[in-house]
């Protein structure tokens, strides 16, 4: 198992390189030079060139790319054009807001979506089931931005219960969390229901019932545990989507998180900042996916067995390098 994790972590490296390349390539296609962006359209060409030279923009593309990659692995994502602070500092200072938003909304969508999904499946074709599935469809089709605006109109303007912008108190998070949680509830509910319907009809659940154990135990211990795998995947993906989706939610509620930072930096053409955020999001997503894969092994012993089997063969055959060395030795 440890070998599997190490291997997966090493595999992250080429993925990150590819991501950096794509991000770098796309942003370098945008017109304008950093000097012009920083100094504005009315600045002297000499000053613009000076700044471009200072930032290394006069070097060819591949040289800039290599520089950037080296800097990234040193932990340096460059400086923003406008505040002239390190990009990484900006991200770190904004991240807690987004993280809180994502974690809270995911937490609520799990504790609402999973039980509703399970009950819908256990009591299929009952009122709970119809309500649950209708709710899921409704939540899935309602656009986030529209719903956010409706909430603001109602709770902030009409009832004056909740603040509509900012992040200074926990009350500020209520509406953003609701807005980001709703689509997640929908997808988690539907996935839980589908997989539960499948497992609850399976032979081993019937075996469990035939044992004469408590029905609650049958549902949660035998059926749900086996239905959890696809649900965990959906939760992980939702975490990724939620973090990405904060771009909309944060700009509507003016939450000073990463999403708002993204929007503002794109508007200002603050290219190092945009690249930094995209890179950060991708890395976060990759890590979550890795975490899900590891969780799989703990949820399903069969998957763990395949991981371990791969490890075993890897140990038996040796690593790629060891094998190559062995071959070369044999030749010599």
């Amino acid at each position, binding site marked *: 198992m440890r070998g599997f994790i190490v291997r997966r972590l090493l595999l992250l490296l080429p993925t990150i390189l590819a991501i950096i390349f794509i991000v770098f390539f796309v942003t370098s296609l945008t017109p304008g030079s950093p000097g012009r962006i920083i100094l504005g359209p009315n600045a002297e060409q000499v000053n613009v060139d000076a700044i471009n030279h200072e930032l290394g923009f006069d070097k060819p593309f591949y040289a800039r790319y290599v520089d950037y990659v080296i800097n990234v692995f040193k932990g340096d994502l460059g400086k923003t054009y406008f505040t002239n602070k390190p990009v990484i500092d900006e991200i770190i200072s904004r991240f807690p807001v987004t993280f809180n938003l994502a974690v809270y909304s995911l937490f609520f969508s799990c504790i609402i979506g999973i039980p509703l999904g399970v009950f819908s499946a256990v009591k299929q074709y009952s009122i709970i089931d119809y309500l649950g599935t209708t709710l899921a469809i409704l939540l899935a089709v309602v656009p986030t931005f529209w719903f956010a605006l409706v909430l603001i109109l109602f709770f902030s303007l009409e009832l004056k219960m909740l603040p509509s912008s900012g992040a200074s108190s926990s009350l500020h998070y209520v509406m953003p969390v609701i807005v980001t949680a709703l689509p997640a509830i929908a997808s988690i509910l539907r996935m839980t229901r589908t997989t539960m319907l499948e497992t609850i009809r399976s*032979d081993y659940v019937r*075996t469990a*019932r035939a044992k*004469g*154990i408590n*029905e609650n135990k049958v549902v949660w211990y035998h059926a749900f545990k086996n239905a959890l795998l696809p649900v965990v995947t959906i939760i992980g993906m939702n975490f990724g989507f939620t973090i990405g989706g904060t771009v909309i939610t944060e700009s509507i509620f003016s939450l000073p998180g990463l999403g708002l930072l993204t929007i503002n930096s794109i508007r200002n053409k603050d290219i190092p900042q945009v690249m930094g955020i995209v890179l950060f999001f991708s890395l976060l997503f990759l890590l979550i996916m890795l975490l899900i894969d590891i969780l799989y092994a703990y949820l399903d012993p069969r998957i763990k067995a395949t991981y371990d089997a791969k490890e075993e063969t890897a140990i038996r055959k040796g690593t790629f390098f060891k094998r190559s060395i062995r071959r070369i030795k044999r030749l010599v």
Partner: protein
Amino acid sequence: MSNLLEIKDLHVVYKTREEHVFALNGIHLELQKGETLGIVGETGAGKTTIALAVMQLLARTAVITSGSIQYDSQELIGASQRELQKVRGRKIAMIFQDPMTSLNPTMTVGAQVEEMVRAHDLENLSDLEIDKKVRKIFKAVEIHHRRRKEFPHNFSGGMKQRVVIAMALACSPELIIADEPTTALDVTVQSQVLRLMNDLKVKLNTSMIMITHDLGIVAKSCDRVAIMYAGEIVETGKLEEVFDKSLAHHPYTTGLFKAIPDLYSKCDRLVPIQGVASDPTDLPDGCNFSLRCNQCMDICREVDPIVNSYGNLKIKCHYLEQEYKGGNCDEQSTNRNKKT
């Protein structure tokens, strides 16, 4: 001796929007303590439905339209979940058809057996005692107790079926329903599993209902046999008598035995029963077997036959009724009629 299990006039229908499947049409069954009853019939005859009805584990679409199932004079149909939980596992245990899918893939086999022990633990055993008991059960089904910590995917089909048997035996139930326990296994493993089940059955003096379509298994392990066709029991009797070719049988039973090769006589072709199993969504008016029966008479197509006794055999057939109860019966059958 009173009956351990008594099924009376059981009707089960699978109702879906498109059609009604008449799975069981008036089943009468009795089982005494320590007895093994074999239920034989082709696919779709309703064998598994009987088993699931006794366990009250029928699918949601199944409706018990009438009848009663009494276990130890306790009515099981309509019993509350709590009552059923006390019966399942402790009094009636079931061995399912397919060992590949009937074990929970995410639990170790030891935990699955242990769960059964704990669910019906009346004496409040300590963890150590439970562990001891689980060990003993594993020993009984000839699995090394060290393999308790392994998951079902680490086991072969035969070993999985042993685990299923271990689970069924865990609380020493009075009745075991084995629903085609060896269908998914190859022949050598089949005989191992059967031997194991028979040994344990004798040792623990449990009653058993053995559901199968294999007459060989029935011959090996049963005391009494019930032959099923299209949701009805067409013939019941002692094993030796049902297998005795010199006695009169239901045409379906005769057909079944004709379809088995005989080791001692030479035969080029087996005689199959003509046609296919009756469609349970659209059963004929009279006798369900009338469409395929080579002795079919006019009355068979119109009136459902009743069960009559012929010696110790109980057979549901018009032909036998006319042949042996009417005017032109031979000596043997008159004797039998006198007995009954």
